[in-house]
């Protein structure tokens, strides 16, 4: 064993999970620093989880006020009779998260995500952004990639009863336990921009329909300069028009992006709590710090989709390799 040992307190608290992923993973987890921006229901589920699991530190970013809808999906913020009280979402969540696990350092970073420069992200090992625009996803991902150290990048989005997780671990090498030996493996992850630029016709057959649908809606919001989730039934005709254009350009059959699916994504943009739970926790699970250390199986690459309607939680590898 190398490095510091876990304290007695840590061993007692983390007993059950150490039995799952081992002491080394626990130690590494306790040294990782995580940044989360966009604190809606799904991201909050993620935060809860990594704090409970015992990450080193967590920095929260969301200046939005804690009002009606934001509160409705948030179990971290105590109900206040005088709604619209003081504090941003990040500040209020921070207080609760600290309480979850006193051994984890939780803090708030104010400011707009787009204003954070490359240097800002250097302090982190993992960056998670949720409910962000296409532009923000691309730009934060690029900033993480410019750093000399590897910063794992995740996006997490939930609309109605569907959701998507994207993972970029860049150049990722990991140890994999075979029968008697441990072999070193390499995985090459594309950035978000690279992944979504891959022509649809060159993707493997039977890619989750949700992948295409999410691209259409994301593109629509980008072109129309909408905030993420700022769509309504009135937009449906235009969204379908865009779908048809994109399908034509990519020579994809329009049936791959059903109207009913688009309608769900556009009309009901609110996160459905059980789906947030599934997604938020799945993203915590995809956490490579935990996954990779156990040396069992490959890290997940690079999209995860969940749709409560068919109940499937699917991993898709959307990369050129």
């Amino acid at each position, binding site marked *: *064993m190398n490095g510091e040992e876990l304290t*007695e307190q840590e*061993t*007692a*608290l*983390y*007993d*059950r*999970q*150490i*039995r*799952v*992923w081992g*002491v080394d993973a626990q130690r590494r987890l306790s040294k990782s620093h995580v940044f989360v921006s966009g604190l809606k*229901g799904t991201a909050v*589920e993620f935060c*809860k*989880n990594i704090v*409970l*699991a015992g990450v080193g530190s967590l920095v929260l970013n969301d200046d939005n006020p804690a009002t009606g809808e934001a509160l*409705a*999906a*948030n*179990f*971290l*913020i*105590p*109900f206040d009779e005088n709604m619209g009280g003081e504090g941003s979402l990040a500040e209020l969540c921070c207080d609760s998260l600290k*309480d*979850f*696990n006193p051994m984890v350092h939780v803090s708030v970073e104010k400011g707009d995500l787009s204003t954070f420069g490359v240097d800002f992200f250097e302090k982190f090992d993992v960056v998670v952004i949720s409910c962000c625009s296409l532009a923000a996803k691309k730009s934060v991902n690029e900033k993480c990639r410019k750093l000399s150290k590897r910063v794992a990048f995740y996006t997490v989005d939930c609309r109605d*009863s569907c959701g998507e997780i994207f993972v970029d671990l860049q150049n990722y090498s990991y140890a994999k336990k075979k029968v008697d030996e441990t072999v070193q493996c390499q995985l090459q992850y594309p950035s978000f921009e690279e992944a979504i630029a891959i022509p649809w016709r060159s993707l493997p057959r*039977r890619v989750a329909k949700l992948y295409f649908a999410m691209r259409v809606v994301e593109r629509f919001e980008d072109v129309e300069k909408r905030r993420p989730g700022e769509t309504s039934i009135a937009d449906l005709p235009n969204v379908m028009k865009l779908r048809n254009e994109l399908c034509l350009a990519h020579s994809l059959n329009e049936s791959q992006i059903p109207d009913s699916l688009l309608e769900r994504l556009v009309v*009901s943009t609110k996160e*459905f*709590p*059980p*789906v*947030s*739970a*599934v997604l*938020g*926790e*799945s993203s*915590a*699970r995809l956490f490579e710090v935990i996954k990779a250390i156990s040396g*069992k*199986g*490959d890290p*997940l690459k690079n999209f*995860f989709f*969940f749709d*409560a309607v*068919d*109940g*499937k*939680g*699917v*991993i*898709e590898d959307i990369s050129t390799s």
Partner: protein
Amino acid sequence: MEHLSAIKGAKVLMVGAGGIGCELLKTLALSGFQDIHIIDMDTIEVSNLNRQFLFRQSHVGQSKAKVAREAVLRFRPQISITPYHANVKDSDFNVDFFKQFSVVLNGLDNLDARRHVNRLCLAADVPLVESGTTGFLGQVTVHIKGRTECYECQPKPAPKTYPVCTITSTPSKFVHCIVWAKDLLFAKLFGDKNQDNDLNVRSNDSASSSDHSEDVFERKKDEDFEQYAKRIYDHVFGHNIESALSNEETWKNRNKPRPIYVKDVLSDEIQQNGNVDKTPATDNSSMLSAMAYLGLKNPQDIWSLKENSRVFFAALKLFFSKRQKEIGNLSFDKDDHLAVEFVTAAANIRAASFGIPLHSLFEAKGIAGNIVHAVATTNAIIAGLIVIEAIKVLQNDSKSCRMTYCLEHPSRKMLLMPVEPFEPNKACYVCSETPLVLEVNTHRAKLRDVVEKIVTSKLGMNLPLITHGSGLLYEVGDDLEEDMVANYAANLEKVLSELPYAITGGTMIQVEDLQQELVCNINIKHREEFDEEKEPDGMVLHGWTQAPAAENKDTATSSSNNGASTSSTSTTLVPTDMEEDDELTILETGIETIAAGKKRKLSDVSNSETPIPTDDKRAKKIAEHAEDDVVVMLDDEKKNSR
């Protein structure tokens, strides 16, 4: 959202406020549920806090159901949550109680309670959403009377049973040593003195008093503690091994164990180090630690034989000096640190004797306490899936209901795999009325044997009532007349063929649980002989299928307090103290079989496992259900695990 009205009008019962329960209660509240009832008999412990996020350090010792309610009301004060700090098997929770709910959601930790809730849901005709997790694996299933299989339609794996002689004389695995240390040695030293115990306590080396050899565990009047402790050590690790060696037949095909005596390991240092009086005084007996006293810090370290022996003596001394009052009525508890230290040390010394690799306290605790692996993410995902299924049930959309498996590694790209529910098993003794067949020696077996080995342990009945024709043979209940109680007590001790309403080959008896509203008919078949090794119960029940017990060191645990006559042929290992959310039911179906296989891979299982037969029909159905038919999952997985 159209499901909102279904949610708002629903009254749901949650059973269990542990790992899954905390997540479930939160997600139900966020999803808009207004009327939630929650039953949990447990109180909060430190090792819950890493995932049962509604609880804090300051809540340790309090009721899970009550604290969970308060925590959720802080962010959702307008909803109604009714907590019950009680056992779901209590008679208050009868069929009428269950009938008031639209759906029952289980986040339970043990087979027994799951079976009980299943029966009540069937009797009350309330849909049940059942769940379980182990590590990264989990499952959610939906049980609707008449439409899908009930929880007991598929056989559940039985707790592992070890022949007594393996435990007392021929251990070959570390788990055998743990069972010995926990169920025999610990129970003998600190537990109820009147309980049957298979530990050899006689020192028959004193040729003088042959039939009057004394119990070495009896501390003589004014006997010095050091003397006593050394005597115990030498007896169990030295003398008992020595006398076992004298039976040469046993060791023909086995490695001979090595007797270990104090003088060989510690020379005379125990005299100097044995003084634990200087340990800081503490009122909290759970803080006592032999490790702390000896300066051993890391529970992950594997101690040497010498260190184990020191821990053995220090723990023994701490029990006798600081916890004197508890001696005589202690039973092993995985959260009793000193007990874990003692059992770890004793099991390791025994393992050293038998050439079995030693284990760390952390590992030993896992085996002894039957601690299951638990992570918060799995519980939360499963809870989300439970709510999704519950909403379908509430919308009367049972066609859309799915069983969902949460996998550790993607199988055909899926991490969450939905499968169409199975139809009820027509031969299920719980949800159909198929009679069972009991082969038994009606001239030798007593009614007590049938009650204990069949009715209680196999059929999982809580308040059984046994009738033969019009005659009442046995009944359990609070409001029985005194003369009936006496009558039943007398019946228990009678052999079947001599009962007032004689049970012989060809007769049929009826066993009924009034609380569960479950009736089983059992056809009796007389049989003279039973194989002691293969049929340790001395009777065989047919029509009640039980999956082969997976020999799994992680989940094997034992129980010495089940009051049954365990000393005759076998030590029954019953999962008594499982963590919430887990149990071996994960073996339930094809996929789960794989899941269990993976789980076992997590730990270093040295011996080859008994292969678990997979049910081809189920596997096929699962395979058919998936869209792309590229690979049949079971084969795929098998390859990977070889």
